[in-house]
């Protein structure tokens, strides 16, 4: 990255940060409304079912490591884990998380512990609720599949960095008659999830989970800024096409 590219990137980050702070302040006064996404509606319904029938929620966070560019999707998954963990901690069977990365597993345990303490301080936290199942793509899937089958899981939220092997997890959940809501940042996995699950989250929708779960003003604000940036990029691409058509670029 040369100096000009670096300054442009820093500028984008600073503008995004300022816009996020401003929109978070505005969201405090009047909440933003976003379009309906079927998967998030399904998550709310499935999570209510978990609490009502005393079954278990399984959140799979994939294999994204924080030391790679795939870390962001794992962090989005942890944010989802926090929200859903808080809602389902009072269920007869506490939620479990599975992951293929040891650092994310530690964070998942901490997130589940915080979520449980938010609703019930006296109950001791069981660290085995956060589980590492395997560190290669297929060993991770092979390790996570038995939990879907044996732990009375009624809802599976698969949100993280996966390859095409995620279809095996989705299929295992379908076979058990459990609800599946899935999202990945990897394009082939998204294509596979389109086939294997009823309503997958495509593209950046997986980063919108917090805003749709009413996780706070910053989540709504970040989604609003994301939308604005996307429109800016669309307009920039269209201007580029026009300039190219008239041979000015």
């Amino acid at each position: 990255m040369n100096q000009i590219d670096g300054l442009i990137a820093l500028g984008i980050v600073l503008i995004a940060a300022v816009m996020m702070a401003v929109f978070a302040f505005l969201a405090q006064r009047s909440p933003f409304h976003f379009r309906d996404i079927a998967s998030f509606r399904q998550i709310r319904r499935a999570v209510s079912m978990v609490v009502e029938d005393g079954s278990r929620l399984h959140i799979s966070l994939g294999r994204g490591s924080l030391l790679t560019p795939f870390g962001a999707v794992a962090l989005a998954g942890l944010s989802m884990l926090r929200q859903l963990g808080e809602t389902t901690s009072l269920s007869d069977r506490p939620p479990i998380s599975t992951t293929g990365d040891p650092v994310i597993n530690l964070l998942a345990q901490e997130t589940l512990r915080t979520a449980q303490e938010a609703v019930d301080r006296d109950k001791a936290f069981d660290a085995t609720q956060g589980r590492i199942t395997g560190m290669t793509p297929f060993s991770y899937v092979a390790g996570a599949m038995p939990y879907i089958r044996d732990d009375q899981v009624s809802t599976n939220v698969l949100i993280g960095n996966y390859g095409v092997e995620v279809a095996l997890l989705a299929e295992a959940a379908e076979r058990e008659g459990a609800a599946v809501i899935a999202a990945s940042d990897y394009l082939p996995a998204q294509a596979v999830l389109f086939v294997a699950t009823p309503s997958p989250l495509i593209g950046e929708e997986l980063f919108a989970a917090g805003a749709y779960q009413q996780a706070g003003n910053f989540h709504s604000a970040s989604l609003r800024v994301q939308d604005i940036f996307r429109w800016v990029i669309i307009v920039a691409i269209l201007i580029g096409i026009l300039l190219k058509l008239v041979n000015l670029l």
Partner: protein
Amino acid sequence: MKRISSAAYAIIAISTGTLVLLGYFLPQVAPFQMILLDWAVILSGFAVFVGVGNLFSVHYTKIRTRSKGYLYSFATLISMLTILLLGFVGALGFSVFTEVENVLLNGIMIPVEISLMAVLAVTLVYSSIRLLRDRVNVKSIVFILTVLFILLGAASSPWINALPFLGNFRLIISQVFATGGARGILIGVALGALMTGLRIFFGADRPYGGK
């Protein structure tokens, strides 16, 4: 006390994030960034040990409580301990044990993963059929037709390749529509990643604990 420690975690996380972020743009901060990233690598290496402990603990609990499928947990623990032992003994200079470890890896682990890939292929075909049965809408039909065209175009059959329109159609799909769509999705994912990072930067998301 908890509030103070929660605030301290947030301050450490935000200041570390600031230094790492600035290290990409300001050469003066880059050395600090490198030190912090080195620490992160060392910590993540140690986290592997903790992860192995977690794997052991989960399966040991399953065996102890005779939970459903505990025999698989037993097999997992036996395999894990065997490989661990072979690795340690091999590291002490007994090369025979290292060879046994390699044979176990190449003879069990890799074939099992390849078998899962084969199962995956069958699963995807089955899922595609179920897609047409359960979700008959425009998106599903376009998806399946596109898959079929690309598969036909990729086939090495001479009579299929002789069809002039098929090759062009495949190129248009894969190099115009698919590439355009993929770039659009990737731009969206990149923006989402930026916003996720900023939320942690602001302390709105705290995966390290605390409200």
